[in-house]
């Protein structure tokens, strides 16, 4: 390996590294503004200047490829002088409004001015002022603060794939803007806030709310989509003020989508904080004992063994296992999590997981999307597909209606008939698909939420088996679930074959005949009319659609208010942490089921959270290792099925508001109005 000398210290580095990366290997800290690991190199801030032996002047270490035998000095007088000079230039036009700036306290410019800058300014001329730009409901701009690092421009062009931001003019007149101040049309737009090293682009809903040092910071995971992005939640009291991404190369890299970041104002609106019971068609406040007693009575009257338990979008695995054990204690196994009717092959975990792992997308050179709109279903995953598209010239084929995916794709068909094309290698894309080195299949729930679902899975498995990269180590068959609860629930066997093929129809038939007690674990995605005749117990945190139609509402904590375990789409076990105490009388679901089991004399074997987690591991060993996923390449269910044609319709109609939390969020409502409705109108 080549070696480089940095501050008299010899380090080995890998070919292709820059001087800055080599310096980091040697432990030398290099200040920077424009350089960012995940973006292309611009080299325009000049803050990373270092001295190189035999070079007449300092070099920009971020843009200089490291060479064998180079001698670099990062702490000489010249370097310090250069940094001071650069800082002075940057601060010429930067306003001194730190006391009213939202970036204050976590500002790169502030920190670096302190460490590397002059203690006073020699500049006496007028500072420039730049008009603020409109960039939509999420990003607030104070453009006078901009130092033109162009990170935001590079992010939107390279990662988000929307050519919306640009640097107009030059020199003194340079300014960052969107074309005619249009809204940034990306699900990842919030990330420019984190990328901005100064306070030019800041969080609009969070404006003037708090200072970073006043916030209680908790590292946890997002549950609003299936990826389970690593996030940090900043709270003050019982208010979640903001969400920031944490670096996790396995799932979200450094990004999170706008729903994850901005839907949090929904966490303090429409909350269920008391126990409600229906009295003369009206929900009245009551206490826990009365409510539980009523549930017991109803269970006794309507028949315990007929009880149906359905999980929702955010149901954690502790709740699932508690509900499952409780239901079984009652003598019923009518529980399910597939409210969107996505089919699985029973007993085959490969039929519902993202088997190849999200990271593997980066190596893909050909991807077949079957009934999936990853841009809305898992935005950060879509950014990976775009990465493959850019870096590997990855070819993408789409079976499903036309959508804007931020990368070019080959449309195969609107309906499932496109799978035939792939199977028989009819089209150009199909032929290339089998010949590429690292092809992947990504099946969206929109392709399998019909009676053909199982057949689609079998056929895709058959195709996957014939792919060149199919091996024990890699399974190119991926199912992209939209909800964080799904894979965990399926892993725990929270399904019943009774609900196969047509979930709603089967459910309605059952309710018509049995009129059972139904436990809804935060399920709001089904039309309340379906439940007519049943006794509905709603466990959830938001007064969304179904809570209003419930007979009993039991408040539970939202994802920021409890520690729970989830499995993301890959089957990766993630654990969320409690960021603040729950609202009002909310109780964790497993406690509720434990209390109910006492009343009903059906034994549940856990008394605390640890016991619950032991049960998890007992049922499924995959829950043993946090942040790991154990996926196999077993595709024994593969068969070359013949599929009846079925038109695909994507099952998300509004990215910004598709769960109970985001439906309660004002920010998300603004996004719907300003971004989606405008896009549809034009």
């Amino acid at each position: 390996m080549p070696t480089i000398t940095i501050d008299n210290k010899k380090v080995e580095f890998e070919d292709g590294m820059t001087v800055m990366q080599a310096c980091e290997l040697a432990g030398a800290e290099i200040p920077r503004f424009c350089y960012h690991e995940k973006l292309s190199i611009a080299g325009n801030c000049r803050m990373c200047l270092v001295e190189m032996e035999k070079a007449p002047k300092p070099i920009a270490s971020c843009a200089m490829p490291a060479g064998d035998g180079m001698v670099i000095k990062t702490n000489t007088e010249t370097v310090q002088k250069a940094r001071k000079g650069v800082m002075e230039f940057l601060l010429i036009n930067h306003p001194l409004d730190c006391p009213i700036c939202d970036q204050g306290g976590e500002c790169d410019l502030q920190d670096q001015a302190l460490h590397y800058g002059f203690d006073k300014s020699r500049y006496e001329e007028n500072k420039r002022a730049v008009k603020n730009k409109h960039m939509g409901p999420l990003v607030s701009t104070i453009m006078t603060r901009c130092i033109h690092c162009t990170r935001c421009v590079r992010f939107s062009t390279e990662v988000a794939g929307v050519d919306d931001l640009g640097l107009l003019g030059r020199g003194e007149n340079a300014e960052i803007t969107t074309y005619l101040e249009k809204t940034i049309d990306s699900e990842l737009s919030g990330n420019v806030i984190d990328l901005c090293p100064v306070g030019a682009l800041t969080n609009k809903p969070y404006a003037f709310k708090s200072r970073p040092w006043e916030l209680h910071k908790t590292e946890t995971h997002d549950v609003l989509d299936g990826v389970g992005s690593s996030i940090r939640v900043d709270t003050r009291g019982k208010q979640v003020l903001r969400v920031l991404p944490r670096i996790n190369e396995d799932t979200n890299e450094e990004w999170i989508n706008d729903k994850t970041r901005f839907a949090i104002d929904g966490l303090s609106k429409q909350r269920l904080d008391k126990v409600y019971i229906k009295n003369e068609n009206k929900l009245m406040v009551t206490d826990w004992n009365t409510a539980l007693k009523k549930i017991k009575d109803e269970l006794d009257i309507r028949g315990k063994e007929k009880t149906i338990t359905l999980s929702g979008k955010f149901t954690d695995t502790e709740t699932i296992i508690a509900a499952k054990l409780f239901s079984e204690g009652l003598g019923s196994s009518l529980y399910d999590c597939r409210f969107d009717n996505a089919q699985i092959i029973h007993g085959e975990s490969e039929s519902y997981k993202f088997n190849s792992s999200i990271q593997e997308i980066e190596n893909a050179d050909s991807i077949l999307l079957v009934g999936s709109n990853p841009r809305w279903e898992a935005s950060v995953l879509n950014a990976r597909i775009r990465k493959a598209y850019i870096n590997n010239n990855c070819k993408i084929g789409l079976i499903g209606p036309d959508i804007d995916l931020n990368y070019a794709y080959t449309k195969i068909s609107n309906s499932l008939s496109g799978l035939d094309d792939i199977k028989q290698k009819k089209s150009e894309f199909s032929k290339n698909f089998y010949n590429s080195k690292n092809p992947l299949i990504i099946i969206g729930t929109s392709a399998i939420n019909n009676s053909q679902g199982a057949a689609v899975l079998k056929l895709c498995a058959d195709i996957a088996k014939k792919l060149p990269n199919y091996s024990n180590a890699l399974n190119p068959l991926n199912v992209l679930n939209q909800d964080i609860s799904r894979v965990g629930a399926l892993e725990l066997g929270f399904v019943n074959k009774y609900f196969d093929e047509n979930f709603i129809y089967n459910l309605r038939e059952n309710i018509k005949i049995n009129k059972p007690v139904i436990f809804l674990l935060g399920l709001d995605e089904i039309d309340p009319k379906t439940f007519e005749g049943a006794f509905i117990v709603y466990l959830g945190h938001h007064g969304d659609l179904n809570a209003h139609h419930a007979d009993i509402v039991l408040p539970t904590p939202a994802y920021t208010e409890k520690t729970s375990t989830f499995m993301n789409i890959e089957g990766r076990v993630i654990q969320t942490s409690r960021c603040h105490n729950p609202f009002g009388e909310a109780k964790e679901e497993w406690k509720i089921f434990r209390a109910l089991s006492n009343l009903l004399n059906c034994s549940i074997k856990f008394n605390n959270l640890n016991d619950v987690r032991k049960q998890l591991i007992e049922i499924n060993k995959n829950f043993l290792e946090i942040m790991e996923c154990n996926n196999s390449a077993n595709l024994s269910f593969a068969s070359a099925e013949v599929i009846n044609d079925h038109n695909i319709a994507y099952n998300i109609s509004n990215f910004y508001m598709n769960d109970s939390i985001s439906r309660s969020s004002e920010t998300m409502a603004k996004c719907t109005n300003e971004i989606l409705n405008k896009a549809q109108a034009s």
Partner: protein
Amino acid sequence: MKHPGMTNKVYNISNNVFNWSEVNFKRASEIIKKYPNSRQQSAVIPLLDLAQRQNSGWLSKTAIEKVAETLSMSYIRVLEVATFYSMFNLEPVGENFVQICRTTPCWLRGSDKLVKIAQDVSNSKLGETSNDKKFTIVEVECLGACCNAPMVQINDDYYEDLDEDNFRKILIDLKNNKSIKKGSQIGRQTSHPKRGDDA
């Protein structure tokens, strides 16, 4: 300094629609062909120039968007280029776009006076367009003809070795749509020494 090429704003006249003329469409296709496959976006500068010529000396919103569409680029990428170069005017300009060099050599040789005359004849201020839409007068930095200072550029042509009299005459002739002499106004051959100076 006011200059129609040094603004970041996109200007549009209502009902202004820009479409390539038949000749220019052909020319644009030829220009694009000069660049290798999948590198067509490199043609953005010549195409903006072509559009500016067709659109009487300036780039309107629709013209910028047309160029972007022709090259399958996003609007903002084309606007970045159009705002970067001061040679692309983003506001309407007069029939004669008069760029007066004000850098040191020309300034020493009296470019100040030229500015005054230009404002006087056109009856407009620096950076603005005259009411009769005949002139837009702007100051620019060095145009690289210092040896024949002072000089101005009017549309595509250089007018060198100016003084108060001959510059006034040029402008008045332009105003009256008369043809005028290009290049040196005192008969100098390119940048040769002036007759009498060479001894």
